[in-house]
Every structure is written in C-alpha cells, then in structure tokens.
C-alpha cells in the first residue's frame, strides 16, 4: 500500500472539511464507545481480565521463541505447513507460490490487516491471481479501489450512497439505497465467488501453541466460507499472535469482542486445526500458516515491546479524539489511531511516520480502554524523542521548542514575558474572552476560537493563593 503518512497534516486538514466523513465519524464516536461501556459494565471482572491479559501477553513475549516452535511443530503434526516471512516481500512470494502450486485463478479472502500490511492484493493481481475480498466492508472497498480506514470497520468512512453507487456500477442490478437489499445483493454475488475460489486466505486472531490451531473471530461468516470451501486454506498472520493454550486464548476472547464492538461475544469464533480429516466431506485439503514478522521481532527487548501485546480490537481509535476528528485515512498507511501511531513508524520508518506520534493530545483515553493496557502515550513519546534526536522534526517545531526552552530556563525573562502575553491576549479578546485570530496559530483558530487567558499567569495566581493561605494561618 502506498505510504501517505508524511502528508498527515494536509490529509487531516482535508478530512476536517469533508462533511460526509464528519457525519460518519460522529456516529462512530458515540456508537462503539457506548456499546463498549455497556459491555464492560456487565462484566464486573473486566478490570481484572485486563490485568491478566497484560500479564499473559508479557509472559508470552518473554517466551515467544519457545511458543512459536511449539506452535510450528503442532501444525506440522496435524498435517499442516508453516512458512516464515521476515519481510513483506517474503510473505507475498510465499503466498503466491502456494497459489501457483494449486494453479489458483481466484482467491477469496477473509478480513486480514496483515495482508493489508504486506500489500497482498496488488501483488497477487500483478501476478495473475485474482483476490476477492469477502468481508462486506472490505468488498465495498475493493469495488471502489479504496483502503480500510479502520481495523475492524473498514468502510466506516463511506455512506450509504457510496455503497449504493459502487454496487450499481459493478453488479448490473437496479440501484438500491436500502442497506438490507444491498447486503442481500453482496451475499448473492459473493456466494458464487466462495464456491469457485481455488484458495481461501484468512488472518488469525490467535495461534494456539498447545494444539497448532488458528482462530478467527467474525460476525458475518465470510471467513468461515472462505476457509471451508476452497481446496487450500492459507492463514496469514503475525508472530506475536501465538498464545499457549485454549484457556489462554479464552482470556483474550473475553476481552476482544467487548473492547471491539461491545458485543458479549462475536457471532463466529472458529478454530482451525490442520487440513480435512479422513472421512470429512468438506474442508480444505491443504492447510498453510504464513507467520509474518515485518519488524516485530526487532521490537523484542526495546521500549516498543509492549506494543506487541496489541490484540487489534480498535478500542484505542474508537475513543481517540484525534482519530474521531480526522478519520483513519489521514494517517496515510494501514494502521490508524493510537496503535497505528506507534506501529507505523516501526514498520515504515520514523523518517516517514514521524507525523503520527505527534498527532496526539496525550489525553490518555487510549491507554485507559486498552484491553492489554499498552502504555500508548508513553510509546508515542518514545517516538517523539527518537525523532528529536535524529533531527527529523520540521524546522519551525525545532526553533519553536528552542525559543520556548530559552525563555523557560530564564525565570527573570519568562515571568514578565508570560505576564505581558496573557494581558495582551485578554485585552485583545475583549468581553467574550475568545480569540478569533492569533498570529502563528491559524492551525487552531481556523477551526475554533482560542479561549483567552483570564489575565493572570499561573505563577501570579499561585503566589496570591500562597499569600492568602499564609494570611489565614496567622
């Protein structure tokens, strides 16, 4: 996928002016967080589950090599194949080779962010294999040559009319604006594709070392048809998804649906263990697992190791004021929101991804809803430090910081300066206490007024209060 992350500022600017997008985001901001809050309220042990989830993930990461070895040997024991891909290029070549071995023409796909990460669809298409997305949201995006703007609700940036037009242009049927009719249409069109496909590719939410199983968590059932009907099933997933036992997987399943959609449990939680057994009348004859690294193994032992706990629930972006204002496409690559702001610089480089960890208010909401308690603001701060040390920030930011630091380190200058500035701003703002324009701050004032200071600086107020207290005590 093309990297547009360096253009975050412009894309965010455009997103704020996009009325349709703003309508969709307004819905998102109430929808997911409210549902999650209700689900969490119904589970009094949720906080404890989060602690256990964090601790278990930490245990797994500290023994990652051993659990991966166990998982690999179990998959092989069950008659499956395991492939390792350090880079996106390795992953794409390996998957293409499996497709070629079975002479695949079409490939159905369940929803998978790892395949977005490696750019699998474009690669397969360039090599004569037609991928067909079957998750409803992903299918709509594929028809529109678009990309997901959210990791679990990929078409969240589109409205009904967009879907209606995309279907009308591709399905050769009368145009409809009824969501139920549109879904039935997709159901019928994709039924044929499911049956005709030579290979089915899905992701995996977890890989179970104990049994060599992979699991997908879905609501539509497309993932199940994708992996059951074709002769070959390829699971494309990443190395940090391994968990020790079925019981351990269960801990994360309890956290996942509630954090993601606010459901008690997703409709389909499907465990796959190897290929079709003797006597089975359906199911794939070949079972492959492609374990993608793409920079993850390099995070072990660094300050970013905590990020490998992520179970891709999307709670952080659902609750993020920045994501809620500018949407997922502004982030310019596969993973948006707070988790994307930490992962993207790791995967595409801080030189290109540096904008993202800066696009945060550090309100801390993401960390407070994360089911595995990833300290996302702290990790974004690490990236900012890294960026500063490598001298990658724009000149304006560096000079701005340098001048502020110059003043802040000299109280004799800082105090009168801030006193004067706050008095000026107060006078300027007039009666209603709001500034409509401010030099060098159009980025703020173009979109909202700047509340003016009340007239006194923090230091002045502090001193006055201390004096008053001393007076009372006397």
């Amino acid at each position, binding site marked *: 996928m093309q990297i547009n992350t360096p253009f975050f500022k412009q894309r965010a600017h455009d997103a704020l002016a996009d009325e349709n997008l703003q309508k969709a985001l307004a819905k998102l901001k109430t929808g997911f967080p409210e549902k999650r809050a209700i689900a969490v309220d119904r589970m009094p042990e949720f906080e404890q589950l989060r602690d256990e989830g964090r601790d278990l993930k930490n245990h797994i990461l500290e023994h990652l090599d051993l659990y991966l070895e166990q998982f690999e040997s179990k998959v092989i024991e069950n008659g499956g194949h395991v492939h390792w891909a350090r880079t996106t290029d390795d992953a794409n070549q390996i998957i293409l080779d499996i497709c070629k071995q079975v002479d695949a023409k079409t490939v159905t796909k369940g929803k998978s962010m790892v395949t977005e990460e490696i750019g699998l669809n474009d690669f397969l298409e360039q090599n004569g294999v037609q991928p067909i997305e079957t998750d409803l949201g992903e299918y709509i995006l594929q028809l529109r040559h678009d990309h997901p703007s959210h990791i679990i609700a990929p078409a969240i940036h589109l409205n009904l009319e967009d879907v209606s037009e995309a279907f009308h242009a591709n399905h050769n049927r009368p145009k409809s604006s009824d969501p139920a009719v549109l879904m039935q249409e*997709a159901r019928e069109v994709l039924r044929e594709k499911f049956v005709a496909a030579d290979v089915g590719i899905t992701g995996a939410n977890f890989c179970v070392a104990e049994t060599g199983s992979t699991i997908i968590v879905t609501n539509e059932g497309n993932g*199940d048809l994708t992996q059951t009907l074709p002769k070959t099933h390829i699971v494309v997933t990443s190395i940090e998804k391994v968990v020790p036992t079925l019981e351990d997987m269960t801990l994360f399943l309890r956290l996942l649906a509630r954090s993601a959609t606010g459901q008690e449990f997703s409709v389909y939680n499907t*465990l796959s263990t190897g290929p079709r057994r003797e006597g089975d009348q359906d199911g794939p004859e070949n079972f492959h697992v492609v374990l993608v690294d793409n920079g993850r193994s390099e995070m072990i032992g660094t300050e970013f190791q905590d990020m490998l706990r992520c179970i891709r629930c999307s709670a952080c972006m659902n609750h993020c004021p920045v994501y809620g204002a500018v949407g997922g496409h502004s982030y310019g690559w596969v993973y948006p929101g707070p988790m994307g702001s930490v992962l993207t610089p790791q995967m595409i480089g801080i030189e290109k991804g540096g904008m993202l960890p800066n696009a945060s208010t550090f309100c801390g909401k993401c960390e407070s809803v994360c089911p595995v308690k990833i300290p996302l603001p702290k990790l974004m701060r690490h990236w900012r430090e890294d960026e500063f040390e490598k001298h990658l920030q724009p000149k304006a930011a560096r000079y701005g910081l340098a001048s502020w630091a110059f003043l802040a380190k000299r109280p004799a200058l800082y105090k009168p300066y801030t006193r004067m500035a706050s008095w000026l701003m107060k006078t300027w703002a007039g009666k209603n206490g709001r500034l409509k324009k401010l030099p060098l701050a159009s980025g703020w004032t173009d979109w909202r007024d700047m509340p003016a200071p009340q007239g006194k600086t923090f230091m002045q107020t502090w001193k006055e209060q201390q004096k008053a207290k001393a007076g009372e005590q006397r």
Partner: protein
Amino acid sequence: MSSNKRSQTSRADIFANIRRGLKHDISESQRQQAVANRLSDKADNLIPARSQLPATEQVELFKVMAIEAAAELIELESIEQVPQACADWLADNQLNELNSASNAELSALDWSPLAQQQITRSERVAQAGDIASLTSSFAGIAETGTLMLHSSAQSPTTLNFLPDNHLVVLHRSAIVGCYEEAWKKLRQTFAAALPRTVNMITGPSRSADIEQTLQMGAHGPKKLIILLIKD
C-alpha cells in the same frame, strides 16, 4: 529464491532477532520449564462469576443470552420431537427443504412429519442455495449463549454456514457455564487431536459495514434456531 529457502532464512533471522532481544535474566532451562508447565497445566485464567452458576441457572442464563444474540429458541421434551418441530418451523416459514447432518442420533429419528408437510430431507454436504440445515451441537456455553459445534464425517462444516437457516439440536445436559468447561470436554472426547474445525456460534450472521447500521444475515445463516432438548 525458492519459497522454501525464503522461509528457512526468515525463520533463522526471526528467531535470532527474538533471542537477541530477550532479557537474559533467567536461564534457558528455566524458560523451557515455564513454557512446558504452562502447556501441560492448561490452567484456567479468571472465570467470571456469571458463568459459575448452579446447573439449572446455567440453562436459564444460556437461554437469555442466546435470545439476546438474536437466536430463536424452541424447547422440546425429547429428541423424538425434533422432526415435528423442524416440520412445523419450516412450514411456518414456508420452506420445503431440510439438509441434515447424518449422525446416529439424528438419522435414527422418525422423519415422517417432514413428508406430511411436503418437506424433502437430505443428508449431504451443503451447497450454495440451500435453504435450511440441521446439525447437533457438542456443547452450549451459558456465559454468552454460545453453541459449540465441531466438524466430523457426519457433520460437514458447510452445513453451519451456507444455508439460509440453521437449526441446531442442543441437549440441556450439554450446557456448561464457561468456555473453559467446553474445552475440557472437547479434550476428553478428542484425546489425540482436535477435530479439524471447532465452531463457536452465538446468534445468526450479521454486519454493520454499511453506514454502521446492523443488518442480520450477512454471509452465514440469517436465522439460527436452537432446539433445546430436556433430558
């Protein structure tokens, strides 16, 4: 470079990276022991109080949660009533086909009530266009009203996903409180290796991908009907 070679080189690089990054504050043998213990203990993590109720209350919880997940629930006195219940439900919905799993319990039933309603019955793998299927469940999980089914020669997985309507037999005695109990039951039944697929199903298929509006019946069954047998 061949895919095999790529995979081997990648594997070596990935493991080297991981091992380089890991803290070396405990010995290798201690790490191996910790992993071996965890894999063999299969210990429970926290199980919510909700799913540790007495058996009768678990059945009630299962019913409430399954209905909340938009499943239909039909309670029957015995397994012998299943053919009539299927015939009635299909007739009420003006449907005339039922494709059934071929396990011993279902095959042994007297299916004449279907014929009386001009409903044809088959036992085969599912196909696109199938109207209704009937399968049996391995367990019911009260915590979230979830059914656990597994693949076998007698119960192809496609029966659970391709037809528009999915009818599922569940015995009250198969209802457990939490997922963990179901896993233990599964391990006992399949000591050598798990079935190829284990399906946990909670209500019918759905999607909210069009304008964040929930619609039932995306790619899987539009209706899920649980036939709960008192036994």
